[in-house]
């Protein structure tokens, strides 16, 4: 395999690489050994610290907390997808009085930290007489932020399509709605599917922010369990267990994104669009013509 950074290694380079490999292994082992030593020194391997996780009721509570995390994620994901399409259509509208408000909303929502948005909904709005459950504060804040990000993703997808696509649609006699609904959006969504799923992973990760506004999800339960002195305050075991669950959930969703990306890359048509969508690689006219003629760019 050829790389920009290095040539095929000769005998001295091979030796150097082996030495570097050994050094890497040693550094990683040192970090792991240090952590294990601290865990052992502070008695984290004692049976008492893990006793909590031998109770069925604790695991039932962990399950419930996980369901609450997933409930917030599901509602936020659906809402963000809907809002994303609405805002994207608004931003691409031909009417300035729709386009400008949509643009401002997208830019402002993307600039505000999700947590501050949650604070506004949960601590700010009661001042003006609107009270809501932490669940709704989490869901609405996640919908607003991820919806505005997804709007930009959809718009980038549509704009990455060759102009001939919409021109052909208009030539067939379709109206603006028809061109968007039948020609542009299906292709844009297919090309952008990996990015859309990656944004859903971000949504899942951000449900953990609900812990800070007392939404009783997994982290909240880990903190609750970790401060129970009757079972020896097992904060470290609780962090390990809950962390493993969170990482597992996100890895599953990321895996879906990778699988979708791999499938898309196999079908040539979308790959051409996705390649054109890479922001750092601008397509020249010649490449565009080549793409339209053969179906895949020559690179």
């Amino acid at each position, binding site marked *: 395999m050829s*790389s920009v950074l290095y040539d095929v290694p000769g005998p001295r380079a091979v030796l150097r690489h082996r030495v570097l490999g050994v050094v890497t292994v040693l550094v990683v082992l040192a970090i792991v050994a240090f952590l294990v030593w601290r865990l052992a020194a502070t008695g984290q391997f004692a049976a008492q610290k893990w006793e909590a996780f031998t109770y069925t009721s604790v695991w039932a509570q962990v399950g419930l907390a996980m369901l609450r995390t997933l409930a917030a994620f599901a509602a936020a994901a659906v809402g963000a997808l809907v809002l994303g399409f609405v805002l994207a259509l608004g931003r691409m509208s031909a009417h300035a009085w729709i386009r400008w408000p949509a643009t401002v909303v997208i830019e*402002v929502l993307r600039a505000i*930290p999700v947590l501050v948005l949650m604070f506004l909904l949960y*601590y700010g709005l009661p001042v003006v007489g609107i009270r809501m459950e932490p669940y709704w504060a989490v869901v609405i804040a996640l919908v607003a932020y991820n919806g505005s990000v997804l709007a930009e993703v959809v718009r980038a997808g549509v704009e990455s399509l060759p102009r001939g696509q919409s021109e052909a649609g208009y030539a067939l006699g379709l109206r603006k709605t028809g061109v968007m609904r039948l020609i542009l959006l299906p292709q844009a969504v297919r090309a952008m599917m990996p990015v859309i799923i990656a944004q859903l992973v971000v949504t899942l990760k951000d449900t*953990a922010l609900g812990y800070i506004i007392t939404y009783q999800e997994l982290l909240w339960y880990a903190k609750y369990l970790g401060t129970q002195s009757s079972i020896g305050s097992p904060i470290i075991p609780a*962090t390990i267990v809950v962390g493993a669950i969170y990482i597992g959930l996100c890895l599953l969703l990321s895996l879906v994104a990778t699988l979708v990306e791999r499938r898309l890359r196999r079908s040539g048509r979308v790959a051409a669009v996705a390649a054109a969508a890479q922001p750092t690689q601008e397509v020249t006219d010649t490449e565009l013509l080549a793409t339209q003629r053969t179906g895949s760019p020559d690179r």
Partner: protein
Amino acid sequence: MGVIADNLDLWRDALLGTLILFLAGGALALVLGTIVGAMRVSPVPIARGVGAFYVGTVRNTPLTLVFFAFSFALPPLLGLRLTDGVSLALGVCALGVYTATYVAETIRSGVNTVPVGQAEAARALGLTFGQVMSLVVLPQAFRSVIPPMMSVLIALLKNTTVAAGFSIMNLGSVRSYLSERGENAFVVILWVMAVFVALVLLLSWAQRSLENRWRVAR
């Protein structure tokens, strides 16, 4: 304006906290991320594997969980006494460790945008490894890394607010302090939002002007 003028001391501390988290966290993320990014494009398979494992795991961990581990699980593990300074340092570490994965990915994809032919041509001219890197590959990679790196830094700036949940003073925690002084929480949070929108717009403006100046003509 009363909310700000009457509580200047708090707003100053909060802004300072956010800036420390942003600058120190950013510096840590850039250093750690460059190391991990270099490992991911290195010719040593083990280093590539370790880098990929680190990025794959931490990128799939919620930032709140990283903060949780650093603020609650690490102090008893290392026997740290929690003072303001220690909490701040732990917060900086959490942000740095989390953001480093994004920095690493940005560097990796930046290096990958340089066409292989560039390095092959440089090697054919007889340039040494150091010359290939410093004269041909890295200048081009650097230019295509800058705009996405600014996006990573903007995300980092917004992520500093998560520290508010772990008793570290920053713009995100102004609300709880000002509520104790009897200020209107709604107005306070609107001001915090305004500050963030202004800061993010400033960074995006910098990003756009850098992008225009350093675009690679290819």
